[in-house]
C-alpha cells in the first residue's frame, strides 16, 4: 500500500475560529478510511481543503506518485487529477436524466470545445451501463434525476464519482436518510470501490462505520484525536470523553 495523499501541518482559521489545527493525515492506495468526529470537528473543512474549495493557511498536501502539491490548484484541476467528492446533501443535476448525469461525469476531456464536439463512444456507453448496474440505476437511466428517491440520488452521486474514475474518493455522509436495505447496498458499493482506489468516508453513523470495517480517524477540534480500528478508537478514553460520551451520538 503506497501513500496517495499526504497532508501535514494543515491549519485553517475562519475569523479567529480555528477550524483545522495542525492536521496531518496519510491515505494509502487502495484504502478505505472512515473519518468520524463530533459536529464542528472540522470534517467538512477537511474535505473543502483537499478539494480546493478552501485554501489552508499553512501546511502541505501532496497527492499521487509525483507528489504534486494541491495547494493553489482550482477545484476543477484537482478534480481532473483524480479526486472526486460526494456532498452531504445529494447534489445531482435534477433537471437532467440519470443518463445525462452519468455521462457528464464520465472520464473525458473537459474543455468547452472538446465537449461541444463530443461524440458518444461505445466504450463510454459500456462504462456508463456498468456504473448504472453497480448503483442499481439501470432501469432509471431515462428518468429525470429529480424524480429519484433520496437513496437513489445518493447512489447516482456515488455513480457519478465512480464514472470520473478518481484515485481518491471523498464521500460525505453517504448513508444519511437511507433505509437499512439501502445502507447495505451503499456499503457494498463503497467497499468495492475501495478495492482499487482510496476512499475516505465521513460519517456520523457508527453502525455504518462498523459495517465498513476499516481504519478509522477521529477528528476533534480540527486535529486527529485517534486513529486505528473502530474497536481501538472506541476504547480510547479521550475519544469517549469528547465524542462517544455525548448523547447526540448513537451506538
Amino acid at each position, binding site marked *: 500500500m503506497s501513500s496517495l495523499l499526504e497532508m501535514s501541518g494543515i491549519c485553517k482559521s475562519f475569523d479567529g475560529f480555528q477550524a483545522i489545527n495542525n492536521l496531518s493525515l496519510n491515505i494509502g492506495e487502495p484504502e478505505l478510511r472512515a473519518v468520524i468526529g463530533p459536529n464542528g470537528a472540522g470534517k467538512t473543512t477537511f474535505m473543502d481543503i483537499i478539494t480546493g474549495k478552501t485554501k489552508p493557511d499553512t501546511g502541505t498536501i501532496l497527492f499521487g506518485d509525483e507528489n504534486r502539491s494541491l495547494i493553489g490548484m482550482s477545484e476543477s484541476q484537482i478534480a481532473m487529477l483524480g479526486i472526486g467528492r460526494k456532498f452531504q446533501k445529494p447534489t445531482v*443535476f435534477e433537471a437532467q436524466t440519470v443518463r445525462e448525469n452519468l455521462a*457528464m*461525469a464520465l472520464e473525458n476531456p473537459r474543455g468547452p*470545445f472538446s*465537449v461541444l464536439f463530443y461524440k458518444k463512444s461505445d466504450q463510454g456507453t459500456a462504462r456508463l451501463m456498468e456504473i448504472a448496474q453497480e448503483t442499481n440505476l439501470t432501469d432509471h437511466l431515462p428518468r429525470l434525476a429529480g424524480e429519484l428517491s433520496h437513496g437513489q440520488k445518493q447512489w447516482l452521486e456515488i455513480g457519478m464519482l465512480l464514472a470520473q474514475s478518481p484515485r481518491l474518493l471523498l464521500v460525505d455522509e453517504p448513508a444519511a436518510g437511507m433505509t437499512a436495505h439501502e445502507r447495505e447496498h451503499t456499503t457494498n458499493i463503497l467497499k468495492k470501490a475501495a478495492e482499487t482506489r482510496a476512499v475516505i468516508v465521513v460519517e456520523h453513523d457508527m453502525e455504518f462505520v462498523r459495517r465498513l470495517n476499516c481504519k478509522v480517524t477521529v477528528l476533534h477540534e480540527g486535529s486527529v484525536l485517534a486513529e486505528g480500528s473502530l474497536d481501538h478508537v472506541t476504547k480510547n478514553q479521550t475519544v469517549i470523553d469528547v465524542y462517544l460520551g455525548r448523547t447526540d451520538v448513537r451506538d
Partner: protein
Amino acid sequence: MPKAHPIPRKSFISRNPSVLYFLAALGLFTAIVALLSEATGAGLISTSFVKTLGKTLCLCLIAIAMDVVWGYCGILSLGHFAFFGIGGYAIGMWLMYARTEIIVVNSLSGQIIPPTPNEISDAIGNQIFGVVGSSEFPLLWTFADNLYIQLALVLIVPGVLALIFGWLAFRSRVTGVYLSILTQAMTLALSLYLFQNDSGLRGNNGLSGLQNIPGFADSGQDAVSIVFFLASALALGFGYLLFAWITDSKLGSIIQAIREDESRARFLGYHVESYKLFVFTITAIVAGIAGALYYPQAGIINPAEIAPIASIYLAVWVAIGGRGRLYGAVIGAALVSLFSSWFTGGGAPNINLGFYEIQWVDWWLVLLGLTFVLVTLFAPNGIGGLFDKLVRKS
C-alpha cells in the same frame, strides 16, 4: 446530410423534432410574407409592416441568444442589448459613410475643377459630423469606408467586449443578481458614453438614414425591405440551428448543470468559467448580428436603444415565452414586440370607460407588467411551457 451512420443512434433532428417544426414554420411564414409584400406587386402587406416583421425576426434572434445564456446557462445577463446596439453601430457607420460619399461626390461632380480626395473627405466629414459641431473623422471611423471590415467588426467588437467583460466577471466568480447588475452597468456605461457628442458616433443623434442602402438608391424601399426581411429570416433560421445544436450537444448538458449547481460542476472537473465565457461570447456575437440586421430596417440607431431598459425587456420576452426552450424565446419575443408596436402605434382601439379613457400608448406597459406577473405566477415555464403541456397531452 450523411445517411447510414454506423452506430444506430437517433439523429439530431429526431432528438429535436421542434427544430424541424420551427424551421418549417419560419420558411412558410417567410414565403407568405414575401409573396404578399409590395415587392411582388401583391401589396397585401405594406412595406412598413414588412420592416416591422423583419425587425421582429431580429428580436427573435437575440431572444434565442438570451435564452441560451439565461435559460440554459443560468446567467441572467441584462446587457445583451449592448451587443445588439454595437452590431447596429458597426454596420450603420458603413451605411452612413458610403451613402454620404455618393451624395457628396455627386454634388461636387458639377464643378469645373474636380475635387481632390481631401476635399471629398472633408465634405463627407462635414455632412456626417456637422450635427455635433465637428468635421474630423474620429479614429473609430478608420474603416468606415470598407464594408467587409465593418461587417467583420459586427462580429469582432461584441465578441471581444463580451470576452473581456465575461473574463473579468466570471473569474472573480461574480454570479446571480450581482452579475446582472454588472451587465446593466456595462450597457448603461456604453449608452452614456455614446450620448456624448465627442464619442465619435454623433452623440444622441445616433446614426440615421440607415434604410438607404448605398448603391441601391433606385431599388426602392419595397425591394430593400424584402431583402432585409429574407436575410433576417435566414439569420434566425441559422441562429436557431446553431443554438439547437449547441444545447443538444454534451456542452448543452454541462451548461444546464452549471445553471443548476455551479460548484458541483466544478467538482466534476469542469472549468465553469470557460463554459460561461464561451456561452456569453457566442451569444454576444449572435446579438451583434441581430443588431446589424435590425437597424438598417429601423433606419436609425441612437444611444437610447442600448439603455438598460432594453436588455430588461429582452429578459421579459424570454420569461414570458418560456426559458430553456428556444421556441419559447421566439414566441415571447415575437408576441410581445408585435403587441407592443400594435398597442403603442395606435393599432389598438382605446377603451372609453365614460369617466376615463384607457389610452394604450400609456397603458401598454401596465398590461405588459401585468402579463409578466401573471405568467410568473401561473405559468412559470412561460407560453412555451403551456405549449409543451398541450403537446404532451395529445
